[in-house]
């Protein structure tokens, strides 16, 4: 391949890691969003406090600090994770904290009349939550989850700083060895754009569909 495209294969290996990481962390974050989001709405006070503390902690401390903590400190505590495991774990926990807020506010946005209708029909609290509120709230969550997914994809670049060989890491390596700075970093930016922009368009499309459906 002609320059600058001769460096593409090496970068694409990084793309694979970036996608793998994004997917795994998104799955983890999705689950955590609901577990913690429901925890925050629980009637059980200790659970509520625990969930709120979790959210505040992961939102209040910087993502990169969290990654460094897992990478530098955990081994001293004899917990050894691979860079990939650390990346998935921290990105999942971090975006799960943001997701829990999405879940909570969407559930609370559903009109009380819906809960009351469920009560009057003698449904159980859990049935009201799962069968009445959640399906409606989920429609509200989708666009925000979509935007968070885009932020997550962008945030994966940080794992290059804990030596995980993602797209950003491959870029810095190639730059280091070839000194072809402009091409390398230019291509890296363009690849990230090609990954993220379709997601942006997808989210907008879904958003439009949902608003049309409501009207």
């Amino acid at each position: 391949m002609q320059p600058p495209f001769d460096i593409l294969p090496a970068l694409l290996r990084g793309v694979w890691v970036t996608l793998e990481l994004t997917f795994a962390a998104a799955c983890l974050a999705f689950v955590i969003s609901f577990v913690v989001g429901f925890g925050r709405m629980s009637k059980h006070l200790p659970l509520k406090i625990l969930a709120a503390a979790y959210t505040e902690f992961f939102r209040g401390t910087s993502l990169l600090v969290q990654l460094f903590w897992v990478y530098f400190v955990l081994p001293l505590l004899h917990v050894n994770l691979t860079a990939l495991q650390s990346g998935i774990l921290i990105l999942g926990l971090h975006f799960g904290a943001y997701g829990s807020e999405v879940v909570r506010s969407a559930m609370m946005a559903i009109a009380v009349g819906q809960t009351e209708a469920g009560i009057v029909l003698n449904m159980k609290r859990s049935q009201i939550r799962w069968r009445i509120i959640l399906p409606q709230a989920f429609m509200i969550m989708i666009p925000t989850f979509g935007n968070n997914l885009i932020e997550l994809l962008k945030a994966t670049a940080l794992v290059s700083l804990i030596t995980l060989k993602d797209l950003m890491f491959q870029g810095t390596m190639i730059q280091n060895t070839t000194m072809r700075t402009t091409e390398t970093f230019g291509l890296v930016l363009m690849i990230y754009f090609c990954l993220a922009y379709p997601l942006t368009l997808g989210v907008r499309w879904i958003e439009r569909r949902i608003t049309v459906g409501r009207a």
Partner: protein
Amino acid sequence: MWDWSFTIAILPELLKALKITLSATVVAYFLACVLGLLIAMVKRTTWKLVVYAVSGVVEFIRSTPILAQLYFVFYVFPKFGLTLTPFVAGVLTIGVHYSTYLSEVYRAGIDAVPVGQWEAASVLNFSRARIWLTIIIPQAIPPIVPVLGNYLIALLKETPLLSAITLVEVLETAKIIGDNSFRYLEPITLVGLIFLVLSYLLSLLVQQIHAKLS
């Protein structure tokens, strides 16, 4: 496990580095606020070509990681004769990145100003600039203060990234302390706590300002 005397010994150094973190935050945020407003205003003009160009650039910036942008600004710009210090490259990149977020916030604020306000101002024969400055902006901003404030907090937590372009801010300082002493637990944990406290204080501040305005 946790060494308190070591903690106390390194605290002054971390707090000194915190100044860099805070000044980067303030400068980048100021840039983001001003540029974000400009973007929102430009996007409302009728100059089609300019609107498309600005929108395109905004989409690109929003769709790529800050870290990749930092490397580009810090390492590629010099090739074209624009050498920036890590601090300047850092606040420029983060500021511009966040201005694209803030432009959306401003847009929502401006959209919420009733159309009648524009019409009333036009009837009075105010100039375009005068309408923006004295009618629209004063009404558009107060309702969006909480959201603008949340972006300040988010931006603060973005600054450790600047360590990647050799700026010795608070996280990089912690790492250097760790490299030298082989003790990472205290410095990195401390940095996490510092961010937690700062985020909390800033959120209180934002609440106060919002309460004052409304």
